């Protein structure tokens, strides 16, 4: 007989004091009736969801449920694939990201992204990797770049490990360090939001723990949306959780509630491991 008990998360107590009060927080994203098509295939089906500010929102769901597509729609990265179509609206602090006068490059400067596979630029040093976003957006002031370099690497908890090796190639770092370098690179342009697309799926448990700790610290300054395959990770790092299935948002709420007392049958089945 399948147990309907929610899975117990050993780090649950970490969330007790940060228990979010759902209604009070200001919102970073307001997503309304969002539908996305790739060619004929509908990847996202009328999703309406608010992403609260200065909190970690995780998106979970089985493969192909549209969670990555949804994440990428938050900074218009999904548009890079051919033949995409979008309906509905995504508001970033009240501004519609998809109105015709909005430049996707500006959107992406405000909404940074960290990818599943760490991807430092192989032709650039560690230092250049971090400041490349600023430099290519026209910042020439070397003093400013140096300050931002150190600040970003410190925020990504990488400064102490690389401060002597800033000139070495970014690809010389270990996998976990590379991923933190990518986080530093994303933070250097001072976005308002950081999107993370399964940032730990290629990392070992120790590197994963470091990134999760980092996510925990970053949320004081940034709004974070993270897609993860790992439900324990969602439970550990996030304040809110959205469960996607077949392109639909099945349930969204405080992580503690989603994991302990989900309202929807499908959420419960997924979380208790009955499918997915």
């Amino acid at each position, binding site marked *: 007989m399948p147990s309907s008990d929610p899975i117990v998360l050993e780090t649950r107590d970490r969330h007790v004091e940060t228990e979010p009060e759902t209604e009070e927080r200001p919102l970073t994203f307001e997503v309304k009736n969002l539908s996305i098509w790739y060619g004929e295939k509908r990847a996202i089906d009328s999703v309406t969801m608010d992403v609260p500010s200065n909190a970690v929102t995780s998106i979970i769901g089985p493969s192909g449920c549209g969670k990555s597509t949804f994440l990428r729609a938050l*900074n218009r*990265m999904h548009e*890079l694939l*051919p033949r995409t179509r979008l309906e509905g609206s995504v508001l970033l602090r009240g501004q519609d990201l998809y109105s015709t006068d909005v430049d996707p*490059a*500006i*959107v*992406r*400067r*405000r909404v*940074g*992204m960290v*990818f599943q*596979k760490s*991807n*430092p*630029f*192989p*032709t650039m040093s560690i230092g250049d990797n971090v400041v*490349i*976003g600023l430099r*290519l*957006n026209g910042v020439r002031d070397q003093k400013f770049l140096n300050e931002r370099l150190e600040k970003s690497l410190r925020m990504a908890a990488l400064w102490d490990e690389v401060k002597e090796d800033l000139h070495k190639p970014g*690809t010389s770092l270990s996998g976990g360090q590379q991923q933190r370098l*990518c986080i530093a*690179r*994303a933070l250097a*342009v001072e976005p308002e939001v950081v999107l993370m697309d399964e940032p730990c799926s290629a990392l070992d448990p120790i590197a994963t723990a470091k990134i999760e700790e980092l996510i925990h610290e970053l949320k004081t300054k940034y709004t974070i949306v993270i897609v993860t395959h790992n439900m324990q990770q969602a439970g550990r790092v996030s304040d809110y959780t959205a469960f996607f299935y077949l392109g639909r948002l099945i349930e969204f709420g405080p992580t503690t509630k989603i994991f302990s007392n989900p309202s929807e049958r499908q959420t419960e089945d997924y979380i208790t491991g009955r499918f997915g």
Partner: protein
Amino acid sequence: MLSKRQDQHTWRKIKSALVSAGTFLSALLVIAPLGLVFFHLLVNGASSINWDFFTQLPKPVGALGGGMVNAIVGTLELLALASIIGVPIGVLGGVYLAEYGSARGNSMLRFIADVLNGVPSITWGVVVYGLVVLRFKGFSAYAGGLALGLIMIPLILRTTEEVILLVPNGHREAALALGIARWKTIVHVVMKTASKGIITGILIALARIGGETAPLLFTAFGNRFWNHDLSQPIAALPLQIFTYAISPYDDWHRQAWAGALVLVIGIFCVNVLVRILTRERAPSTA
């Protein structure tokens, strides 16, 4: 029963040996021409290569000695002119194929480039003769450079496209996600990552056109003297070799051998350079 099996075993061994020997002979036949060419050039040409060859102009008919310095410099000038036309158009076209354009348009462009790569090189000479030489009423270095440049374009276009497609998509996404404009992403991230491959493609194209004779016959035309005016006919190593080789004079024949040897060594060096570059390319595309 056992002996029959043994027979089969022996027969299998013989078949295997036959096939091995066949492939070995074929491989030998592939390498042999290269060795023969080098050997022949060395035997016939090496003796005529001396300081004069690289510093003197050709002597008048009958006078012994002289060199091909004008042809060597002329070839370099023609390669430079060809690069001015072929490199930017080829590289930018390759970038367009890899980064922009619609799938259908691109496959058509690719097909056209492949057809152009197969066009006999003398055709380019005829085309430039008709378009440039007749119109401006004269053979010129410009016309020769244009003919070679036109040959370069599809070559560079295809190699550039290939190495740009090798750049992992993650790098493009990472740059775009930083709010970097598309063209800056392509120039500073994608092309920079693929730069060694692009340079390799350019070098291969240069090595290919460096030895072309046919497109120069009625464009650059050749010249026995120094020419510092690019709107006048200019000497080129392959042309000089051609002229000397079909002449009736023994001394010119020796010079033709020497010229061929210099040309082959030059192209060989470019190919070695390409090998060095491609060997180090692995980390950049990782």
